[in-house]
């Protein structure tokens, strides 16, 4: 491309031309026009004529700022122009730099010299321009190199310049915390400035710094307090209030001191923004001071009653902050809050929703939920789901703490899933299953609700509640003993419209059908015509082969007796009114007797046929989950069907023999399903102790060599369970047929071999024993509804004892909680390094302020300077925390102050030379200072001087 010619300059389009051109563009043509203009600019910007160059840069800046055109390639022309003697060109160049430069722009360093020159210009506007630029583009290098000049400007006689220098320095501190040591004292002096601009800039700076790390600025409280009393400028007052909001929680005496002036401002001011800031400060930081809080709440009420949506929104927000400690405040304004649920503004609605949830207690929960559901029904989808979401999260908080009547809550969950806009299927699913596992007494109602959901074919068409249906299906299968009509349940699980479900959920349906079928057939077989003998038979079978199962059975009456106490409240429930006592799976006899009337041979045959007809086609499904499960069921039906069928017309002896085998087998199946699933702690996996000799962080580079030996990739965690289960012979029965059992044993032997060879990658065998003692082994066949990962975790502890104990003690149904504070996550937040450095430096400077210039300090300082041994910055942290925890302990704080002073002095002189050092050296120095400070603590005798804060406070 040709270079810029005279013609180019002569006919150069101005910015106005460019803007007009863009405006004239037809829709869609804009991009092309801009691209063309950028091409022009590329040529023009190379011009030697500074006017042409400036105009080109101006146009490019415009395009960059408003049309997102990249201009990183034009950084150098901007630097070139910044040294122009024409003020407008310089302005333009620096504006362009501050709008487009980023931390990675490499030509920034070329600006250093120009900025330094401008800083010393006699024209305050040049200085101001340079300061503005510095504040928006400064990097570490720039900050470090220009700190000395900034230090001079902070003392400028022109307030205009001083103000800008103070405002610009925040960025410099962020980039180069060492600058704090140099400049901080001068900035503090300006807190007493009489010039509003300077004061405002200084307070603004401190506000920013305090928000990041309040504690370091406590010593400045007297200065801020003075401003709080004297200033009449609302902007400044707001900033000072923000500072106090951070400081007050750290120092109770300070809070006591400021509460009255703040209330005074609140009473007197006509400015809404200042009043709002006062309210905010009181509710966030002074909530212990009852009269102040009352005053603030009165003001909030005023806001709420005004017809301004802004005030209403902020009032509700403030109320939400108060609500944590003073819930009466919300109750007092209940009416406005509830009405706001219907506001035109969704933001206000959300705030009021949050407040409504804050009002929830055991007593009013049902009422509030009723109101909320009615709002949800008439709201637009988005807010409707917000409401549902908050109901779900509030009710489930802390293991359903607020819920007394679980039957009510479970039916509410059912109701919620039927709300047309409901998209909270996932949460409802989780809660339904969770409640099923945790709260025994509510299972009857759960099954009832699940039935309602399952038999409604319309729900299958709504993808949002497929998850709820999945939970419903799982519950009906898992707690099938509570179902009153097995045939109806089976029909709903197998209805043709289930083909609308995604295959994982369909698999849950099929699995549930399996459980229902097992339950039905087993109940039938174990009762037969004569209730007494099949159970003998089963006992016989059990004794022969399955010791452990038989133990479960014999122990059943005990648990049943335990349960009957807990069951009392439920028997009064209307849906259980027919006197059919629901029973847990283990308790065979009572369950059988109650089912006896329903389960005739015909009805069982109907059940079996229904399953067979409906699942037949699915055995050829392409989805493996569906196919496999369908095949399992069909396989089982193939075995049991002739036996049920023949039980009528065969001879007595054959019949007994067949039934013996059939019911024996069914018993095994049934037992496999009747193990109860319990909740699992989120930290369960972590609590499995890491066996000795297992090195988790070691490189797994040799894993391939190991895998070469073994053809079958077996997920070790799952296999572990399997092998262990087989050893104990408890879970064999979950395999419906022998054919399926074989491969499993094969894999087990493979696994055993693998374990033998690579034992170190396995958990130690002690762990296995522990697992088998404490927890029911996971039953793979019944866990589809639950995440696989969760299933793994299930191996770990489940505190059954705890649950039983509570069963009798509490009037409210027992909610099983694991004993380890399940769900508690501790997040350790690391402090930001930069801020830490700033505040570290600030502390040193500030705490050094008051030190007397005793000569002994200097001597010690010199000695310590040489001591560059590195220490962790912890020393710093621990020391400040002692200061914090003992406000009265003046001497310790004072020691800090004096030692800080030394360091400040020691560094300030050499500062400029040391700037050139690398980071690590710098940080070394900081650490060394901490170290020396500690030393100073030990050696100095400082009891004589009185510290700043106590002075002010007493």
């Amino acid at each position, binding site marked *: 491309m040709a270079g810029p010619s005279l013609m180019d300059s002569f006919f150069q389009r101005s910015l106005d031309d460019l803007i007009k051109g863009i405006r004239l563009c037809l829709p869609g043509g804009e991009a092309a026009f801009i691209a063309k203009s950028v091409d022009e600019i590329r040529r023009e910007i190379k011009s030697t004529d500074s006017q042409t160059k400036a105009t080109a840069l101006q146009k490019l800046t415009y395009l960059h700022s408003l049309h997102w055109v990249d201009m990183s390639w034009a950084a150098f022309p901007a630097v070139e122009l910044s040294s122009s003697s024409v003020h407008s060109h310089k302005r333009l160049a620096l504006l362009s730099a501050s709008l487009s430069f980023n931390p990675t722009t490499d030509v920034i360093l070329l600006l250093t010299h120009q900025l330094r020159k401008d800083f010393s210009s006699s024209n305050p506007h040049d200085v101001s321009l340079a300061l*503005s630029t510095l504040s928006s583009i400064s990097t570490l290098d720039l900050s470090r190199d220009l700190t000395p000049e900034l230090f001079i400007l902070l003392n400028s006689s022109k307030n205009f310049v001083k103000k800008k220098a103070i405002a610009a320095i925040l960025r410099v501190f962020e980039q180069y915390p060492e600058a704090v040591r140099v400049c901080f004292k001068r900035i503090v002096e300006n807190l007493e400035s009489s010039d509003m601009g300077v004061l405002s800039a200084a307070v603004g700076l401190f506000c920013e710094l305090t928000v990041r790390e309040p504690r370091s600025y406590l010593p400045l409280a007297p200065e801020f307090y003075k401003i709080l009393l004297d200033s009449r400028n609302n902007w400044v007052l707001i900033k000072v209030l923000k500072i106090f909001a951070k400081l007050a929680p750290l120092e109770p005496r300070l809070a006591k001191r400021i509460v009255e002036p703040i209330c005074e401002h609140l009473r007197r001011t006509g400015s809404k923004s200042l009043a709002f800031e006062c309210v905010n400060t009181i509710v966030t930081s002074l909530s212990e001071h009852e009269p102040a809080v009352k005053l603030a709440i009165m003001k909030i009420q005023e806001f709420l009653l005004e017809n301004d949506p802004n005030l209403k929104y902020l009032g509700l927000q403030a109320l939400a902050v108060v609500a944590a400690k003073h819930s009466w405040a919300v109750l007092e304004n209940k009416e406005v809050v509830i009405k706001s649920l219907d506001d035109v503004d969704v933001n206000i609605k959300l705030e009021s929703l949050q407040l409504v949830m804050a009002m929830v207690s055991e007593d009013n929960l049902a009422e509030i939920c009723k109101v909320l559901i009615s709002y949800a029904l008439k709201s637009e989808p988005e807010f409707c789901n917000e409401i549902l979401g908050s109901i779900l999260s509030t009710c489930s908080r802390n293991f359903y703490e607020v819920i007394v009547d679980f039957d009510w809550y479970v039916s509410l969950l059912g109701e919620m899933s039927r709300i047309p806009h409901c998209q909270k299927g996932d949460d409802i699913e989780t809660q339904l299953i969770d409640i099923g596992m945790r709260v025994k007494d509510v299972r009857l109602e759960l099954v009832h609700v699940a039935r309602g959901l399952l038999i409604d074919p319309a729900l299958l068409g709504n993808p949002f509640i497929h998850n709820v249906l999945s939970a419903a299906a799982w519950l009906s299968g898992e707690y099938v003993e509570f179902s009153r009509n097995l045939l109806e349940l089976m029909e709903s699980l197998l209805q043709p419209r289930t083909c609308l479900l995604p295959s994982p959920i369909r698999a849950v349906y099929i699995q549930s059908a399996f459980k229902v079928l097992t339950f039905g057939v087993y109940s039938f077989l174990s009762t037969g015509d004569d209730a007494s003998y099949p159970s003998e038979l089963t006992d016989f079978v059990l004794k022969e082969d399955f010791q452990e199962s038989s133990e479960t059975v014999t122990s059943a009456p005990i648990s049943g007796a335990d349960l009957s106490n807990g069951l009392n409240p439920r028997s009064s429930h209307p849906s259980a009114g027919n006197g059919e006592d629901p029973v847990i799976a283990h308790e065979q006899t009572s369950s059988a007797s109650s089912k006896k009337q329903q389960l005739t041979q015909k009805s069982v045959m109907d059940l079996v046929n229904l399953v067979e007809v409906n699942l037949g086609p699915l055995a050829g499904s392409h989805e493996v989950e569906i196919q496999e499960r369908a095949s399992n069921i069909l396989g089982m039906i193939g075995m049991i069907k002739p036996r049920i069928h023949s039980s009528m017309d065969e001879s007595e002896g054959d019949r007994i023999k067949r039934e013996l085998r059939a019911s024996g087998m069914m018993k095994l199946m049934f037992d496999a399903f009747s193990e109860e699933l319990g909740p699992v702690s989120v930290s369960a996996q972590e609590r499995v102790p890491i066996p000795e000799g297992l090195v988790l962080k070691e490189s797994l580079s040799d894993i391939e060599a190991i895998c070469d030996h073994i053809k079958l990739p077996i997920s070790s965690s799952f296999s572990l369970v399997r092998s262990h289960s087989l050893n104990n012979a408890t879970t064999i029965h979950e395999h419906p047929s022998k054919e399926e059992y074989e491969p499993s044993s094969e894999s087990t032997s493979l696994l055993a071999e693998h374990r033998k060879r690579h034992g170190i990658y396995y958990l130690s065998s002690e762990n296995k024993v522990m697992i088998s003692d404490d927890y029911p082994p996971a039953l793979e066949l019944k866990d589809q509804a639950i995440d696989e990962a969760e299933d793994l975790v299930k191996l770990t502890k489940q505190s059954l004892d705890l649950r039983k104990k509570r069963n009798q003690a509490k009037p409210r149904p027992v909610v099983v909680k694991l004993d380890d504070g399940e769900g508690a996550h501790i997040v350790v937040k690391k402090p930001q390094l930069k801020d830490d450095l700033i505040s570290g430096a600030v502390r040193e400077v500030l705490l050094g302020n008051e030190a007397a210039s005793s000569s002994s300090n200097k001597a010690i300082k010199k000695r310590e300077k040489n001591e560059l041994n590195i220490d962790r910055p912890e020393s710093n942290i621990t020391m400040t925390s002692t200061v914090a925890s003992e406000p009265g302990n003046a001497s310790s704080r004072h020691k800090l102050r004096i030692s800080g002073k030394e360091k400040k002095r020691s560094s300030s002189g050499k500062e400029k030379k040391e700037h050139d050092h690398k980071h690590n050296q710098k940080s070394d120095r900081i650490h060394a200072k901490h170290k020396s400070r500690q030393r100073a603590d030990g050696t100095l005798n400082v009891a004589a001087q009185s510290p700043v804060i106590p002075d002010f406070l007493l």
Partner: protein
Amino acid sequence: MGIRFILMVNKQGQTRLAQYYEYLTLEERRALEGEIVRKCLARNEQQCSFVEHRNYKIVYRRYASLFFLVGVDNEENELAILEFIHLLVETMDRHFGNVCELDIMFHLEKAHFMLEEMVMNGCIVETSKANILSPIQLMDKAS
């Protein structure tokens, strides 16, 4: 850092001024502006002037055909920012005389200079209209 960005956007959603006080890439800016504009312009007069977006609070106000949107962090006082917007508009009004969208379009630099006087590092440093405008008036005189 108080104010994180200031946008002026017309009714059609076109950005007329964009000043950021933290570094965002062009793509991030473009996405952010798009999202905010969509959110705020959809709101009506009866709704409040505050919108939460990502980790910003957006305080906005409409003057004639122009929306002034200020993104602030969570510590900031919303009402004070509304007053700041009003002050900005009054200042521009005083300078341009009945300021309109075109004034800002064609004098974008000046608008930036005014902001430069009012805000540094995201902190409001000057609230006196006379003080804000005096450097610009000097500049006008010089040229």
